[in-house]
Structure formats: structure tokens, C-alpha cells
């Protein structure tokens, strides 16, 4: 994925689309848009930086997982097998990007309306388990159907571009090449699959 920071307007449509697609409980986000205030008065800018799981090629979360619950698919998507996760949180600690969250006990009973689950929540929460770690899945079910991840689909500014990094002619590869795509926290040597351009 490539995120064009010049295009991002901080509307959080991606955040909402992600919650809608995945049905995550309150306070659990697979993607967020960080705000950063830069510069000094009177020349101050507010910047918006969307973040999500970077599906790193050398993912520390995969390495530290003692059960193999966190695994990497052949297409590079990093997923968590909820049936194998023991909730040790080693991956949460190891992720340099703070993009993993523990689904706390009781979270799936609480819902957005405190104790009352809407029919939507009842359906969506069936896909989760309590006591395990959850994260962005790059909407792999959508990707398998040839669709884009929900956050990419919802972005009104086309700030997020999804594609195949291995294909040098794909739009993402061209953007990275032409506009100097940079990986977040490259010093962590995790080789993220999400690039930022400006």
C-alpha cells in the first residue's frame, strides 16, 4: 500500500470504513489517522498521517509469536489465527508501529451501547475472540475477491493506493519509484509493505 500524505485531508473516512467493514468493538482500531503539529508559531502546519499494520516482510510480530498464531501468507499479508493465539501480547510489545491490540475480556459483550449489542455487532463480533490479539487484515477477504481494502475504497482523496509491490508496473510500484516512497521507521529493519509519499 502507498499512502500519499499530500492527498490525505484527515477526514478519517478510512478509520470509519475499517470499523464498518471489520466491526471492531469500541476503542479498537485497525487503522487510524494520526495528527502531527509541525513547525513553530506563526508558521505551523497540521499534518495527517494514516497508519495501519504495515504487513512487514520481516515482521517482528511473526518472529516473536510463540504459537505461530501470527503468520504471513504467501501474498505477504500478516494475519492472526485467533484459535492459536494465547494472548501473551509479545507481538503487541514487538510491533514498532503500535498497530496491534488485545481484545480484552468482556469487550465483545459490551458493544457501543454498553451491554446491548446491536444486530450488526452480534454478527460482526462472531468473527472475534476475547483474550487474543487483533490487527488489520488488509481486508484479505475483499482482496481475494479482487476488491480493494475498505480503507482504500473509502478514501475520498485517493490518498491510499493498494496493489502488488512485486509487480514493477503496478501503480504502487510506480508511485514508490517516481515519488520516492519511504517506509515508516525504516531503522527498525522490518521492511514494511506500506510506503508513504509526499
Amino acid at each position, binding site marked *: 500500500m502507498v499512502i500519499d500524505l499530500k492527498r490525505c485531508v484527515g477526514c478519517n473516512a478510512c478509520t470509519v470504513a475499517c470499523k464498518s467493514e471489520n466491526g471492531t468493538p469500541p476503542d479498537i482500531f485497525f487503522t487510524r489517522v*494520526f495528527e*502531527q503539529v509541525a513547525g513553530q508559531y506563526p508558521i505551523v502546519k497540521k499534518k495527517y498521517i494514516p497508519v495501519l499494520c504495515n504487513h512487514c516482510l520481516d515482521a517482528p510480530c511473526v518472529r516473536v509469536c510463540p504459537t505461530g498464531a501470527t503468520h504471513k501468507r504467501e501474498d505477504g499479508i500478516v494475519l492472526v489465527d485467533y484459535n492459536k*493465539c*494465547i494472548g*501473551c501480547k509479545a507481538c503487541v*510489545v*514487538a510491533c514498532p508501529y503500535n498497530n496491534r491490540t488485545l481484545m480484552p475480556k468482556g469487550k465483545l459483550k459490551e458493544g457501543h451501547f454498553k451491554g446491548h449489542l446491536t444486530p450488526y455487532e452480534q454478527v460482526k463480533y462472531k468473527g472475534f475472540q476475547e483474550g487474543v*490479539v487483533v490487527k488489520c487484515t488488509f481486508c484479505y477477504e475483499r482482496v481475494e475477491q479482487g476488491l480493494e481494502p475498505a480503507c482504500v475504497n473509502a478514501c475520498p482523496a485517493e490518498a491510499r493506493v493498494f496493489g502488488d509491490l512485486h509487480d514493477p508496473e503496478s501503480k504502487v510500484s510506480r508511485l514508490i519509484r517516481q515519488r520516492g516512497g519511504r517506509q515508516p521507521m525504516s531503522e527498525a529493519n*522490518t521492511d514494511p509493505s506500506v510506503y508513504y509519499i509526499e
Partner: protein
Amino acid sequence: MTFQSMPMVEGNEFVMGFRKQNVWTQWIALAFFFGKIGSGMFILSLFLGTPLIALAGIIIENIGKGGALMIHLGRPERFWRAMTRPSTSWIARTVWAMGIFTVIGIIYLLVPAGSAAWEFFRVLALISAVVVAVTDGFVMNDSPAIPLWNTPMVPFLFLLYSLLGGTSVFFFLAHGGWIGVNSLLNLETLETTLILINLIGVAIYLLSVVNATAAARESLWLLIKGPYAKMFFGFVVVIGFLFTLFLSLFIGASGGTAVVGLITLADLIGHFFIFYLLLQVGVYSPVLGKLTI
């Protein structure tokens, strides 16, 4: 915006800045605490010839550390799965190390003392206990995102704390006459020396952080000037080091069992809080790192 001026972000605010880890807390600290005490007691017992304490070390390791880890797990009923990936995961290696240590330790206790097999298992037991003492350090060390922990000093500190914890408990039990020690070692001198070595070890560890990354310095700031400073200086430095050092150097065993008990208690308090606080002040580097936007 420089990293130094980035805010410390608490909770779910969508703001760039330093973030504290908040998922490894008191139960992991307690697991480390029991893990070090258990392995330390076992290591000392190998040299002091006290099989009962060796057994106590194994029990503390399994029930204390194992129990704390089980409470920490989100899905404890699946704990056995933690053994499935020792090739890459230090947590899996820790679980294996505990299991191997327990088996070897029990065989060592069952084999007739003085036999060739006993000597063989004694060496194996020593190696496995040392491995158990340091592997927790590698679990912390294996977090590239938290620079305070991502240093080779951490496993070394864990070994030092293990030896100190074991010595403190031994010193108390031997002085109280609850165990007979057939040792050439002077436990009182060993205790004082280890307190000094640990103090120097912690000081070197923290000083090494001063010139490290901004996140490590943020951790250090939290520990020595920020909200955890009182706990750090109170429990770790004053009670854990200075008070124990003062009592050991100027009163020591001549003060009676009560004083030795006080030294042990103070040492154990410092022992728990160093682990607890190092976990609490684990700060992630800002999410985008050197990617300045």
C-alpha cells in the same frame, strides 16, 4: 518537529508521539521476579549442597513464575501452544527452558549424591538454571520497538538479579538455622558483593541509555524524573540497594536473624520493583521513526 519535542501520548489519542507499552505489566514483573528467585535459589543450592532449597527453587519457578504467566495470558487454557515455536520465539524458548530445567533438576535431586551421574546432572542442572535465569532477559531484549529493553545488558542484569535473589534467600534461611549449609562460601560477603555488583550493573545499564535513542532517553526520564521516579528511587535505589548495603556492611549477620530478614525483604522489594518499573517505562520509538514529515 524534533523527536525530543514529541509528546508522550496516553490512551487512544490519534496524536504522534512517544507511547508507553501497557500490555506487559505486574504479572510479567511477578513472573520475572519468581523466575529469578527460583533459578537463583537453585543455582546457589548446587554449590551449597541443600537439595531441599533446590526443590523449593524448582517449585517457585514452576508455580510462581508459571502461575504469574498463566494469569497474564489472555487465553491460559491454550498455554501449551507456547511451546510450538522455539525456533524463533524467545517466549517459546523460555517455556522449553523451564521444562528442561524442571526435568533435569528433579533427576539431579533423585540421583544418589556423589555418584558420577549426580555430578553429570549437577553440571546440566547448573547450565539449565542459568539458561532459565537469562532467557527472560532475552524475552525483553527481543523487542526492537522498545530501545530501553533492546540491549544486551538486560539478560546480563537478569542473571545478576537471579544470583542476588538466591543469595538473599539463602542468607536468611542459613542464618536462621532453617537450613544447614556445607559451604566454603561466606554468604554475608557474597550478599554484599552481589548487591554492589547489581548496583553497578543497574547504573551502567541506565547510563548506557543516556546516549541511546530518543525513546530510550524518554524511558530514562520517566524512570528518574517522571512519574515513576519516586518508586524507582524509593523501592529500587533506597530500599533495594542503599538500605540493604548499609545493613549488610555495618550490621550484617551480627545483628541477628531479624536484621538478616530485613536485608532479604528489602532486597526482594527492590528486586520486584526493578522488573516492574523497567516494564512500566518501556517507551516505543515514535511510529514513523526517522521518517520526518
